[in-house]
């Protein structure tokens, strides 16, 4: 059975520098998959290639067997792969509700003619309901009319997730969601993610916070200097010599 | 493509015209003036923007003319004498603003006559003229058409007066056989290109090249002149270039070593061109607009009062600004004054009838006939003699007056041929 998302010999060259070199890993449906590695390992570059932000120099990203590398970000999104951004990129000038409404763009495609004559009443109500569900799911139910720019840091991260969640994705790509969160917020966010997963949504997670990774992920891939290093469950990776060495530094050049 | 059975607009306009004057005559402000009340004349022309040089100097000339007329007792109508004053509106050479201006001048300021530059702005004002039956004048007879019964082109007979210069050139310098021409690509340039082509053909002068059109925004004329001189012509014709183009082109011709004959419609501030080139270079330059201190203008056939005095006064107030436009609007006023005094009232229809009585009119350069049926679709252009001016020893001197209708009788068909080729005939204009 082909896995939901597969990365085959993925390579990315910026001029002379090879940021990602022949990477291979799979993400199974309904799992939470972690992608870890020391700084500069090429995690975010891989993430950007999967989400269509970059076009890979070589190799392919397969979604249910179909090669989606090189597609524009919105085409990747329309295939159910929705990403969030690192430092809480939001529509600061719009209200929280409106941010979530933008998220409902795909399930409730706006139609210009229907909009003028008001025939899209049910579409709008559907989108509105979906947006409110997503916001309530992430605990933002009572902040709907606030401006996104005025929210606290934690709330802004949650809103970023809510926008992605509002578009009914099959896979959510999370770009360091836990960075800058205190332990209590991290625990809360981990709970939410578990619920998302139980909802049937697959999650690919790029993260430094080992406590979150180990607590959440069913499967973890570790990268170093753009190359594949190791893969396996949380326990396996925690004790994997190459991973420890890569993180603790002084790593011999791995074959 | 279904060509419209008849020009819907045309028939509606005829209906409009006949009913308009009667039905809306009342809407006009009371045109019969109380005794001694000041007559107001509308001056609707560009006073700001790139075309202002065709408006502002004319207004200045009119103010001087009004002062001199008022000093001499003003306009003598049936019920006594009336002072005269001008109400100006800057239409920025835009048809929409011209329409607003016309409405204000006629329906609010109660003017008895409106002078315009014409060109792009006239079609915007035409519906107002139709509706109110107000008398209008323009500097461009190319605005005339059968639909413009109350529009006159009484002074500048652009472009047809150009034929006189070419005719004089052919007579006095028969050895010159080849010519080239350049013109600015706008409403003024095109009709005169056709006229010059006809005049050159009538005079047996062969065109070496297609007329070279340049964009009105051009500032560097070296490439244009290089192109003109590439065929070694005897004559270079500058068409009706504004003075902003005549000066740099003449300078380029001088610098690029042209020694032949130059002919142009205007040569405003020719003393400055001489300063930029040389007296010898400008010797024999032919154009059509005399200085008003020219002795020939004191002859009896001239209908402009005290031209030398007017010229001196204008130069005193606006040194170095005298140009063709300075006197043209004033000479229209002279014609209007004669018409109003003959009719004894300022009512537009009465003045128009008086001015066109017997098909003759007192044009600034002598008696002329109301003309233009074939060319403009209506006999509303006052065409008679026109001076040919040549620069001799650094001074513009009138070499003689040539009759335009006479030329037309001989070569009218040539002119119509070229005007049709350039879509300039009244029935061709879309």
């Amino acid at each position: 059975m082909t896995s939901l998302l597969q990365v085959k010999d993925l390579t990315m060259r910026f001029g002379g520098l090879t940021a990602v070199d022949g990477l291979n890993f799979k993400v199974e449906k309904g799992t939470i998959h972690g992608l870890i590695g020391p700084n500069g390992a090429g995690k975010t570059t891989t993430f950007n290639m999967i989400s269509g932000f970059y076009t890979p120099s070589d190799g392919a990203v397969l979604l249910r067997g179909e090669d989606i590398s090189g597609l524009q970000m919105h085409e990747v999104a329309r295939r159910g792969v929705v990403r969030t951004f690192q430092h809480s990129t939001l529509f600061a000038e719009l209200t929280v509700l409106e941010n979530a409404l933008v998220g409902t763009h795909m399930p409730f495609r706006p139609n210009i003619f229907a909009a003028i004559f008001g025939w899209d009443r049910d579409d709008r109500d559907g989108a509105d309901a979906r947006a409110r569900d997503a916001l309530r799911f992430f605990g933002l139910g009572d902040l709907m009319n606030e401006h996104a720019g005025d929210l606290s840091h934690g709330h802004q991260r949650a809103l970023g997730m809510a926008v992605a969640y509002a578009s009914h994705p099959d896979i959510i790509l999370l770009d360091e969601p836990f960075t800058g969160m205190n332990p209590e917020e991290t625990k809360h966010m981990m709970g939410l993610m578990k619920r998302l997963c139980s909802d049937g949504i697959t999650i690919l997670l790029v993260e430094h916070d080992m406590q979150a990774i180990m607590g959440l992920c069913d499967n973890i891939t570790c990268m170093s200097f753009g190359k594949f290093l190791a893969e396996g469950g949380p326990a396996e990776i925690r004790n994997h010599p190459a991973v420890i060495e890569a993180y603790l530094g002084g790593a011999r050049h791995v074959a | 493509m279904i060509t419209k059975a008849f020009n819907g607009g045309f028939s509606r306009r005829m209906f409009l015209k006949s009913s308009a004057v009667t039905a809306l005559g009342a809407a006009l402000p009371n045109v019969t003036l109380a005794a001694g009340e000041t007559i107001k004349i509308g001056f609707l022309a560009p006073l700001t923007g790139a075309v202002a040089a065709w408006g502002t100097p004319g207004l200045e000339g009119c103010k001087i003319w009004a002062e001199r007329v008022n000093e001499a007792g003003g306009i003598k109508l049936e019920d006594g004498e009336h002072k005269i004053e001008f109400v100006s509106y800057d239409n920025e050479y835009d048809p929409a603003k011209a329409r607003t201006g016309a409405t204000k001048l006629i329906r609010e300021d109660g003017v008895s006559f409106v002078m315009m530059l014409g060109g792009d702005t006239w079609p915007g004002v035409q519906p107002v003229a139709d509706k109110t039956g107000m008398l209008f004048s323009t500097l461009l007879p190319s605005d005339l058409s059968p639909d413009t019964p109350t529009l006159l082109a009484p002074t500048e007979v652009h472009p047809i007066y150009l034929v006189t210069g070419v005719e004089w050139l052919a007579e006095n310098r028969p050895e010159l056989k080849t010519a080239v021409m350049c013109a600015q690509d706008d409403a003024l340039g095109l009709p005169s290109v056709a006229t010059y082509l006809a005049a050159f053909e009538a005079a047996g002068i062969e065109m070496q090249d297609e007329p070279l059109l340049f964009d009105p925004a051009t500032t560097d004329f070296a490439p244009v002149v290089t192109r003109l001189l590439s065929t070694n012509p005897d004559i270079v014709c500058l068409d009706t270039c504004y003075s902003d183009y005549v000066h740099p082109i003449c300078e380029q011709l001088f610098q690029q070593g042209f020694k032949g004959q130059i002919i142009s419609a205007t040569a405003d501030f020719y003393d400055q061109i001489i300063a930029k080139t040389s007296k010898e270079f400008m010797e024999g330059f032919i154009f059509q607009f005399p200085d008003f201190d020219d002795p020939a203008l004191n002859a009896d056939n001239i209908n402009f009062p005290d031209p030398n005095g007017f010229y001196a006064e204008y130069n005193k107030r606006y040194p170095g600004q005298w140009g063709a436009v300075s006197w043209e609007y004033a000479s229209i006023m002279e014609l209007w004054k004669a018409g109003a005094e003959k009719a004894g009232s300022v009512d537009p229809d009465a003045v128009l009838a008086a001015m066109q009585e017997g098909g003759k009119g007192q044009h600034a350069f002598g008696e002329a006939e109301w003309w233009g049926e074939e060319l403009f679709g209506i006999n509303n252009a006052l065409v008679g003699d026109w001076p040919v001016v040549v620069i001799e020893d650094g001074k513009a001197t009138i070499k003689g007056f040539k009759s335009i209708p006479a030329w037309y009788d001989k070569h009218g068909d040539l002119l119509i041929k070229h005007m049709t080729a350039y879509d300039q005939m009244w029935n061709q204009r879309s």
Partner: protein
Amino acid sequence: MRNLIIWIALAAGLIVLPNVLSFSQQEVLVFLTINILLVASYRLLTLTGEWSLGHVVIMGVGAYASALLTKTTGLPVPLGILAGGMVAALIALALSYPLFRMKGFYFLIGSFAAGEIIRLLWKRFRDPFGGTKGLKGIDPMPDFSVGFYNFDFFEPTSYFYFAAIVVGVCLWILWRIEKSPVGLTFHAVHWQDKLAQASGVNLRAYRTLAFVIASGFAGISGALLAHYIGTINPNSFDVEVMVFVLTWAIVGGTSTFYGPILGCVVLTILNEVVLRELGLEQTRPLIYGLILILSILFMPNGLESIVQKFTRRKEAGLMRPEEAK
């Protein structure tokens, strides 16, 4: 219910308005109504963050299209006006392919270049565009009567009523679009295009959609102008007019729907009525330029910010309260 009263009062006001004005002010009122549609449609484009310098030339495309269609094919004028809008929208669609490879400053100058090329093509081809003299004798609106009032379209008041109805409908449509999910997507494309793209928004399609809709309405305003003054030429749509539209939008402020309209009304009344009344022909541009600078320096958020101060409505939705800026 409150809204209904406001709408009725507004309608009554508009009906009475021309009759209290002088003749020439009625003419200015007609051109003002047409320009309101022009600047309101321009704002729709700025929603996506793109500023164009070709908007007035596209208005000209609508004017030329409507004039030529009614003249050559005998199309009734009201349909001609709609057709003018359609043709302008189609030309904009064609232009969007080269133009939307650019963003920001390049789009601004690219649209300027596209506009100038169109104008030069009008100048170059005497047939059918009439060259530098443009088109004359454009068919006027056919007069008709509707029982209690007969429309004589030479009179500015009649044409004002007709234009006000057409512009009113267009403004209502523009308002509906902006308040719809499509309008929300335009805002999203402007503020965070990457995030919008991640939500599945095709950036280029939405920028093009805004450009095409804005151009369609600009075309309609061009056709309305053409059938009133009966003549158009390439210089009626040159960059000087575009500069005015730009200043109306910016001085008025583009964060609200009524901002640019406010800017257009205030600056037109100032320039065409107040300054002309003072009879300062030569200094009119000087004062207008000065007022432009002063309003940008001391009122950067535009005239709309003053209105927002008065209304003080803490409105949710797209209206940004004053302090959040």
